[in-house]
């Protein structure tokens, strides 16, 4: 939808906390056991965070995106980035006020144990997260590529004016795309919560990885985002072999800048603009 959401990482953070409170805080899910509990919690975090995201979109973001905003000039074109930046600041710092700055994490037997495959140790919680993530990617890919609603979304993103003439409700498409994005992020956050510790500012680390991945793949390309994200993850991890640990994120930025300069449309991006 050509909407850049600065707050994406903070929705991720939010869902980590929701998953955390669902599993540990109130013990609602305790009866599901230590294995299924966190995963169910991750999927339950989805709707909760989705609701927050929906409210944010309905009352704030929708007013600077969609058909009306497409034609605006100057700061108008940046309205949506700036609004999501504001959302991000509120979520981060609101989180700090309400949740405190102590890092927390969900401890499950899965996050402590590993499978051994030859010389490789695989953390079980991470493997489960990975499998669920792959399933989600396939689901989204099929939705956007095969269903009527998905095609409508892509049309609305590609050329919102033309899509309007073809009878596609572009504002609705924006709403659906936003909700989908936030919902998926929330599930991802819920899953991550059991394999790493987090605090209210954690979102930002992910935003950087996310943008680098998406830009690498080409903005607006689903497959591109998947491969781009994977590649950036590998760069991040591999960089520690040659660079000091602190420069891990610098490596990401360097790759990010290289992509932007050498191939601004990304690996999978297509030129659609006409002069």
């Amino acid at each position, binding site marked *: 939808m050509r909407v850049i959401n600065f707050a994406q990482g903070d929705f991720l953070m939010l869902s980590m906390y929701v998953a955390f409170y669902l599993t540990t805080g109130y013990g609602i899910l305790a009866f599901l056991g230590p294995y299924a509990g966190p995963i169910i919690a991750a999927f339950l975090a989805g709707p909760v965070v989705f609701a927050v995201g929906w409210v944010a979109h309905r009352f704030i973001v929708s007013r600077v995106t969609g058909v009306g905003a497409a034609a605006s000039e*100057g700061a108008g074109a940046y309205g949506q*980035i700036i609004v999501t930046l504001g959302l991000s*600041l509120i979520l981060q710092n609101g989180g700090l006020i309400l949740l405190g700055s102590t890092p927390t994490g969900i401890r499950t037997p899965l996050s402590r144990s590993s499978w051994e495959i030859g010389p490789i140790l695989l953390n079980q919680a991470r493997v489960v997260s990975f499998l669920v993530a792959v399933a989600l990617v396939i689901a989204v890919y099929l939705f956007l590529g095969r269903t009527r609603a998905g095609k409508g979304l892509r049309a609305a993103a590609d050329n919102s004016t033309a899509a309007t003439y073809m009878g596609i409700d572009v504002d609705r498409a924006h709403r659906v795309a936003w909700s989908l994005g936030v919902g998926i992020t929330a599930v991802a956050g819920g899953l991550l919560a059991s394999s790493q510790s987090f605090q209210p500012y954690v979102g930002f680390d992910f935003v950087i990885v996310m943008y680098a991945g998406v830009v690498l793949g080409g903005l607006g390309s689903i497959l591109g985002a998947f491969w781009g994200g994977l590649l950036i993850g590998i760069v991040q991890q591999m960089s520690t072999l040659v660079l000091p640990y602190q420069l891990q994120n610098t490596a990401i930025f360097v790759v990010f800048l290289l992509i932007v*300069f050498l191939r601004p449309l990304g690996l999978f991006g297509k030129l659609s603009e006409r002069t």
Partner: protein
Amino acid sequence: MKISTARQGWAILAVAVLVLLLSLLIRSAYYQLVLTQLLLWAVLSLAWNILCGYSGYFSFGHAAFWGLGAYTVALGMIHFDLTPWLGIPLAAIVGGLAGAVIGFPTFRLRGHYFALAMLAYPLATLYVFQWLGYQEISLPMKREAPVLYMQFADPRAYVVLALGLLVAALVVSLRVENSRFGKALLAIKQNEPAAEAAGIDTWRWKMRAITLSGALAGMAGGLYAVLLLVVTPESVFGMLVSAQPLILALFGGIGSLWGPLIGAVVLVPLAEGLNGELGDVLPGIQGVVYGAAIIAIILCAPEGVYWRLRDRFAKPRVEPRTTAKPAPALTIAPEARKVSGADLLVLRNIGISFGGLRALDSIDLVVGAGSLHGIIGPNGAGKTTLFNVVNGFLTPDAGSVSFAGAPLAGLRPNQVCRRGIGRTFQVVRAFPRMTVLENVIVGAFVGARDDIAAEQMARVALDRVGLADRAAAVAGGLTTRELRLMELARALAPQPRLILLDETLAGLGHDDLAGILGVIRQVRDEGVTVLIIEHTMQAMVQLVDEFSVLDHGRLIAAGRPDEIVRDRRVIEAYLGRRWMDRVADTVA
């Protein structure tokens, strides 16, 4: 139009006096500190505004300059015993250099890509400084010579220092706003290709803007280090530092002199005050304040407080008719007078492809000096592509273009414009928020020694096209005819030898058409060579001396109008083969 420079100057003085009075009244050292921070954030925001407000290139990374400035001062003092009195100017140099180094590659990008790339710089630097072991460095106390090292017991001294920077930043902004620098940046913001084609070296102005912006930001960052005495990577390169100038400027009014200051005056005391009162109970309250403020302003008054207030209270300014109009005696530069007979523009074997599409294929075209040459062809024939090749927007895969005997290969559009080729666009590319006169002045900069000469040339050009009485109107509200004429005037203002007119006649009614045809003929009669694109045959037959017909990227015919209308290939291209067969007898 803008309020006069003198009045703005007095207003800056008034602000300075007000701040000084305020600092005398405030007792609490804490609020003195808040006041100093307010001034410094206002400077950063003004620095941001010079680049982003005027040129429209958004930066999410001004913390890079701020942080480098802060570390320059701090490290200079620790390692080289360098006093901040020299360290802060050095910080400005470092900031300016950083601006140039960052701008050089990054200006290849536009829009969101530019904004995102800018975000990466301070964050990448942040980790580098952490890795270098500068997690937390403190400025050494110099008890033996505090004044020499800018360490004052009285917090008001810092207010005065910060105020000095603010006044400097305001004066610089004012100078930028009222010069061709500011006009060039505004033109870039409103329509970059048009600015480039009008002879503005967009690259150079953008580089100047980011260098100046970086220098101001670095300077402010340097004083910030002196003020707080402790520098950490997070506090100077962090996301909030990058977000703050943007939020202040947007809140106050982007692209205005006073906007960043208004933003700082409202938001900094609010955020810092709440942080001071409630910081221990509600950590991060500043971020919430800034976040809420920016969302509120984008939703309620996206243009910012300054513009909203101005629209409400400023009297609708009536531009006084300029009675002392400069005599339009200097109509044509002597060298632009007829060089008749010689070939002015020569295209040899030009070819260009987009992917598999051969847009232009071995085009040979010669335009004689002083002629009125028309290029016609159906939609998609490659007419505009041809213009884009001539004026430098596109580089041909093959062939050469030469103008007045010199090759144009490798020149950028603004350089082509400097050589004496003006152009208009198929879809009018105006600077919608400028007046007609300002639009044309932007075009005149190329040929003018100074701003006064530029205005004079612009008025002459407006006279030539008969639009002088609309000089003060805002371009956004013009009719199609007026827009076409304004664009023509903009192309004519620097007194080019050749102008390229891209479908200047499209979308005009019958009466308007006659008027514009008259203007174009008159321009030719004054000695300017005209190359015009159209796809309607009728108007062109009346107008041009010579025709070239383009179809599917090839020149299929050339000659005098009466020959062309009887040419078989032309009729076929226009009306199709079946029509051709039907009228075959009459055409012969």
